[in-house]
């Protein structure tokens, strides 16, 4: 599979989780796998534990976990769930 390359510069993702809840752990693992596989080192993944930092959810308009937000490049995309359907995630992130 070819490397997914963001169209406009570096890929910046934020994954919102709730501690070690099973879906959050799953989403974290899936996100890391997808990024390293499709975007090599040209990405940045920020993981935000809402149990530690609930205010961030309010600021970013997150209402459930796990939620993955593609902050850059624009447009901002929200992907909700465990990120199990990797091809759909890669597509949403603008990869191929």
């Amino acid at each position, binding site marked *: 599979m070819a490397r997914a390359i963001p169209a406009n510069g570096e890929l910046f993702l934020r994954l919102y989780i709730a501690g070690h809840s099973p879906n959050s752990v799953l989403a974290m693992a899936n996100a890391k796998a997808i990024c390293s596989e499709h975007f090599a080192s040209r990405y940045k993944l920020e993981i935000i534990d809402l*149990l530690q930092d*609930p205010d961030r959810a309010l600021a970013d308009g997150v209402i*459930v976990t*796990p939620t993955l937000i593609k902050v850059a490049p624009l447009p901002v995309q929200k992907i909700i769930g465990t990120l199990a359907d990797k091809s759909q995630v890669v597509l949403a992130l603008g990869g191929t």
Partner: protein
Amino acid sequence: MNPIEALKVQGLTQRLAEAEATIQALISGQIDAVVIPGTANPVLLIEAQRALQQSEARANCERDRAQQFLDAAEVILLASDLDCRVTLINRYGASVVGWAPSEMIGMSWIDHFIPERFRLEALEGWEGIIGGDLSVVEGVVLTRNGQERIIEWRNTTLTDDAGKVIGAFSCGTDVTERNAISRALRRTEERFRFALEASGVGIWDMNYVTGELSWSDILAAQYGATPGSVKSFESFLGYVHEDDLPKLLDVLSEGAKSGEDFKLAHRIVWADGTIRWLISGGRIHRDADGKPTRAIGISLDVTERRMLEDQLQQGQKMEAIGRLASGVAHDFNNLLTVILGFSDMLAGEILPESPQGRDLAEIVKASHRAAGLTGQLLAFSRQQVMQTVSIDLNKLIGDMSGMLERLIGEKIDISHKLQFDLPPVSGDRGQIEQVIMNLVVNARDAMPDGGTVRIETEIVEIKKTTFPGETVEAGPFVVMAIRDTGSGMTQETQRRLFEPFYTTKESGKGTGLGLSTTYGIVKQSKGHISVSSELGKGTMFNVYLPIGDRKNVPSVPYVAATRSSNQHSTTILLVEDEIGVRTLVARILTSAGYRVLQAANGEAAEKLFETDGKSIDLVVTDVVMPGSDGPTMFARFQLKAPRLKVLYMSGYTDHPVALQAGFGTESPYLKKPFTSSDLLKHVQFALNSTVREEAAT
């Protein structure tokens, strides 16, 4: 659409897409947490929520299960608050009082479920429970339909976290039926115990494994032992009479082998030597291998019963011997009458000093001795002719004392203790004299080395039960006790003492008729005799005689043995079935100058009476004959010839026929055997007597 609107539409679309994705994720279970803005903890973990829900469900489930347990329990489970209001009741508890559990919550237990008369008491009890008194109590509860049940309660206090009492938890068992059963059981037990005590039945129980033996108190009493003192089979065996021990062990081992009930009569010996008769019975239980494990049984003291049976048997034996003796004596008397009569007649023809005369005198002497013996036999069998009069017993004893002193010799003292103002006794003077003499002679023979004879009289009251096995007319009797200080008698001798021909004296020294004669005389006098004796200490006979009439003056008819002048014109009808006696009497009467008509029985006599009746002055007849008896026959003659006179001859007095004829002191009666002068005296007396019918008019 301008670009701003287009952006708005795009934003809305995106949010819709996000909302849809969120719902999808929620549905597919990919969501961990939901953020709820404006709350203290805005992130609500779905997992935690679920866990909470699960734990609540589990708690509910456990509560349900606990309730099920509560409901399944066949005991009343009741929780109450401090005011004794129901806070929890299981289904069973509610069913006992006839309510639904939900109805009862909040109701005051005391006001609704306790009968009014017990409420005060219940309130005090409740205060006690709250105060910490947790003893088991029984109480009455009231059901919805007004019935009462008895409940046994166990209580515990309920406390809050701080340890403060907030109520009580009670567990109740309905014991109404149980109490009724145990009451019934107690009653049954009581009855059973009463039955055992009243019937004197003792119970024993033996454990073969431990060797332990347990006796009821009654059983211990039967053995003369203190309750609880006999605890082993061995100590029981120590009481068994040695002669009965082998039989008892046999029966027990047979019972252990067969497992069947056993029963036997045996003797036991008390610590003080008293011998008792017991009937013991029981059953031996065995294990699967047939080894005895336990035996239980009963025991009954039958000493008195055996004594009574013994006495009854003895009485029956005496009766039988009496009948036999009387039969023999009666026939023998007829023979002696013939021998003595013909000897008498021979004596008139032979010189007394001649050798034949001396021989004849020997025959007469021997015949008189034989007559004496048959007289004694008849006395024993109570068939002697009695002349019953009232006798002053004290005076009689006094009159006899000189003779008795000579009789007993110098080595023996005789003393009296006679009750003052003793009522007269009823009896035959001669026979009572014989009783005293026989008993004093018996006392003398028991004291070959000397001693004391004491004669006592007093008046006593006797009961129907005083002489077991005898017919007793209860009332006052005069008792004469004759007591010696001699060798005493064994039990066996005491038992057989009154049997004819039973003697402990050396052969030839006693006839064995003395005491049996005494017995017969006392019985014929409607009295009783008893004996008590102890080996080495002496013997006491008690003679009980009925009280006679103080006014009854004895009158003994006196007849001179002279021949009257008119006898030659007198005709006598002689009726006697025994040919020897008839021939003899006919010869005596004929040789005395009477005209004698002879008949062998009543029928022949009646024929003679029909043809020659007018000439007959006197009927001399046997009493007991085959066919028509003497008195019946005479009664018929008397209808035709009221002035006809009679003289009866017999050896019996208490034969039914003789009794019917009204024999007594006034009856013209001749006792067999008799001499010719006896006969002539009585014939003369009968001819001179006035006929009863005449006396009555």
